[in-house]
């Protein structure tokens, strides 16, 4: 296992470096000037020259890249052109916010979707299955911004029960201390995710329920509850684990809409705004974070496979 993990870590490093090179080239191929984009249309040639000199943009592209890689290796991700804040500071400020919000919503979604999927598989073709399937499709096809607006309109504006803003504290502890403010954004993100996860879980559970070992377990008189918990749940989880592993990158930067609507500036908004302002250091820093998250997510999923299915043993031929 250790050898396998080391190999995957090596592959991950290559993937992340390749991603950085690709991103660096692509963002520099984008038409337009970072200086003008940042300083505005009234920037004088003098200011543009200072800007380009300050950020090394007057250097050849290969030299800019080498300088950037050197900085990254020394733990320096550069400084945001538009926000004038070190990128590492921005990530340190924003990432925990998204990990909290999207992490909570993912956990909540799993807690609902997994039993829901199994329930639907067991009741396949029944009224409850049809109703829940319809509800899932409705949730899945509804944009999250609409959920957000509807929930705010109902619970904040009409009923005055919950605040329309996510927590505004700067620390995770501070945000957790304001649980009422977490309800609407977490619920918004969880609703869409529940619909997706529950569909996967249902399909997977239907497959498992048709397996011979389930029939054997039933023939041996094992109670339905134990069959579901010991055999169906564990074996049905594999596709969902893959899904969760792949969604790690979404967990760190995927909540642009929720961040906008709930006044919760996180990585998603940072990435989006950087993309529209030619803010190269932030774009590269965010790409690095997303790349690392993707690699970690997939690695975690692989490890989880081994735990869930003892037949899978990595590092053995």
């Amino acid at each position, binding site marked *: 296992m250790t050898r396998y993990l080391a190999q995957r870590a090596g592959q991950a490093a290559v993937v992340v470096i390749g991603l950085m090179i690709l991103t660096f080239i692509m963002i520099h191929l984008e*038409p*337009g*000037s*970072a200086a*003008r*984009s*940042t*300083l*505005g*249309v*009234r*920037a*004088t040639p*003098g*200011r543009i020259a*200072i*800007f380009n000199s*300050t*950020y090394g943009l007057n250097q050849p592209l290969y030299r800019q890249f080498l300088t950037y890689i050197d900085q990254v290796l020394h733990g320096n991700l550069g400084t945001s*052109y*538009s*926000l*004038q*804040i070190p990128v590492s*500071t921005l990530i340190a*400020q*924003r990432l925990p916010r998204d990990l909290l919000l999207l992490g909570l919503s993912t956990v909540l979604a799993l807690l609902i979707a997994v039993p829901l999927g199994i329930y639907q598989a067991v009741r396949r073709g029944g009224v409850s299955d049809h109703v829940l399937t319809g509800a899932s499709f409705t949730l899945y096809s509804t944009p999250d911004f609409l959920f957000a607006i509807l929930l*705010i309109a109902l619970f*904040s*504006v009409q009923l*005055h029960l919950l*605040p*329309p*803003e996510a927590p*505004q504290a*700067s620390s995770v502890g501070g945000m957790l201390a304001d649980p009422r403010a977490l309800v609407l954004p977490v619920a918004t993100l969880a609703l869409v995710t529940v619909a997706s996860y529950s569909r996967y879980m249902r399909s997977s559970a239907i497959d498992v329920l048709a397996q011979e070992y389930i029939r054997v377990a039933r023939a041996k008189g094992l109670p339905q509850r134990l069959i579901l918990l010991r055999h169906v749940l564990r074996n049905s989880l594999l596709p969902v684990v893959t899904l969760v592993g792949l969604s790690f990158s979404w967990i760190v930067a995927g909540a642009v809409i929720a*961040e*906008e*609507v*709930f*006044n*919760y*500036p996180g990585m998603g*908004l940072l990435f989006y705004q950087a993309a*529209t*302002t*030619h803010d190269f250091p932030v774009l590269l820093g965010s790409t690095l974070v997303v790349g690392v998250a993707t690699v970690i997510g997939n690695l975690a999923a692989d490890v989880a496979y081994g735990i869930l299915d003892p037949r899978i043993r990595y590092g053995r031929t």
Partner: protein
Amino acid sequence: MHGKARIRLVRRLAVPAAATVLAVAAAACTGSSSSGAIGSGTAVNGHARHGGTITIGWENATPNFIFPLAPATNSDGYNVNLTDQMWPYLVYSGDGAKSIVNPRESLYTSISYSDGDRKVTIDLKHWNWSDGVPITSRDFTFVYNLLKANVPNWFLYVPGLFPSDVASVSTPSQHTVVLNLTHSYNPTFYTEDVLSTIQLLPQHAWDKTSATGKVGNYDESTAGAKAVYKFLQQQGGQMSTFATSPLWKVVDGPWALSQFTASTGYYTYVPNKHYSGPDKPFLSKVINEPFTTDTAELDELRAGSSLDIGNLPFNDLKQSGVLKSEGYSLASMQVAGVAEIMPNLYNATVGPLLRQLYIRQALEDLIDRPQIVSKVYAGYADPGNGPVPMQASGPWASPLEKSGGPYPYSPSAATALLRAHGWKVSPGGTSTCQHPGTGASDCGAGITAGEPLSLQLAYSSGLTGMAEQNAAIQSSEDQAGVKLTLKSEPFNTLAGTMGNCTAASHPASTCGWQLVDYGYDPYTGLFPAGAGFFNTGGYNNLGGYSSPEMNQLINATEYGSSTQAFFSYEDYAARQLPWLWIPDSDYIFVYRSNLAGFAPLNPFSGSNNTQDWYYTS
């Protein structure tokens, strides 16, 4: 709320955010009754109450620099909002909704011009810094010395103006500063547009080169001034110490920073107990809370939260009834700027078309400005009759502009103009040049036979009002066969891809744009000077317009002092159409109904004169 109007160079970046407020709902287009409910603000009855906290919502606002002289690379317009409450300008612009200098709030007792307007004598008020030290002329020379040694790296620097236009500075007394200028200036221009951008800074506390070093007179040498500037700029970007650094504790404005959260941009002020100015703050605390969007801000207001002031997007005007039931009032603020569609006279494809004055005139004839004001902006916009706003410009709108400008909406006039210059006009289709050539009845130089009158108009995306306005313009231009293709892009993308285009730069890669609507351009101060906008090579003259007569007329407004000279420039610009004039929409604000002093809104302080606000009992 939004960034302030007084930023000379960087406010452009705040335009799309600001313009978000100006978006308009279809309901407003039908003449929503809500429009009539908004005024410029009404007096609030009741006794002034000392104390209380106010929370102001700011859209997408994260100040990141506290030293008032920000570097050239910093374009965050919200830094001004953060700093000018603590370090006010030498000349305070605006008094309520009046576009005049406000001597009460200003730091001078008198400003006089002599020696043919080459010598400026400024007498300072006997005010004190918050640590009790008097504000003196040395504080002015400190600012001057820092800027003189570092001028390219000052974000507000306009080539040729302060401090480059100062030959020498002397301080005959503790409270008197004398500037000897390199040439004569129009005193109105210099006071209202140049001195209004200068803040005094505490030499006795900031003239140092390190945090632990002693205060000296380092600024008096160029090397010393560079070192001090470098140190202060480095400290000015340390967001975690904004509220704690001893440097920033020394203020002369009505407020002092009490909290700043770097990760969110949330910050609070408490009164400067030693403020020497006339209007001591009533409130005990001002909270500035950033919002990602105006929608999030509006949700907070509608939920009856602790938010006391926010902005209302035009497309949410219909929410005014709900907001009033939650205890809010609404007020509009006129904008001291000019809204325009910029033509690129040196675009490789359509430059020859746009260089023809008659074509620009036809384009302007086809813009139905009054209808845009009433239908798109529900009446809350300056008509845009020329380069000077009618409502927020004080006395500077000429009789021609007041009468509706030189080009009132007239499709027939546009059609006649085009036909008179050899065009086959095809209403609803695309007009084409029938008579190429340079004669009086020909299409003009560089325009070929059969060339279509087809143009692309780019504008900032995501702004409902701007999109509706440009759709209306596209429709009305169609009446004379002018084919406008609309293209929307994020503001920063537009800014990044559209450079200054002149005959010399042609055909640069950043000159592919044809017509562009960025939003509006704020004037620097009370005096709506045309320098930088329409003079040859002006920093904001992106389309390459160049006219010796225009240059001469602009110079006459800056270096002379005749109102008639200003009107001559203004009318010439209005007729020449270096830009196409379009309406400039107002801002709509929501505020607690028992908050007095907020309205009427000052266009020049960005409605940020919190020292005048108080709750009524």
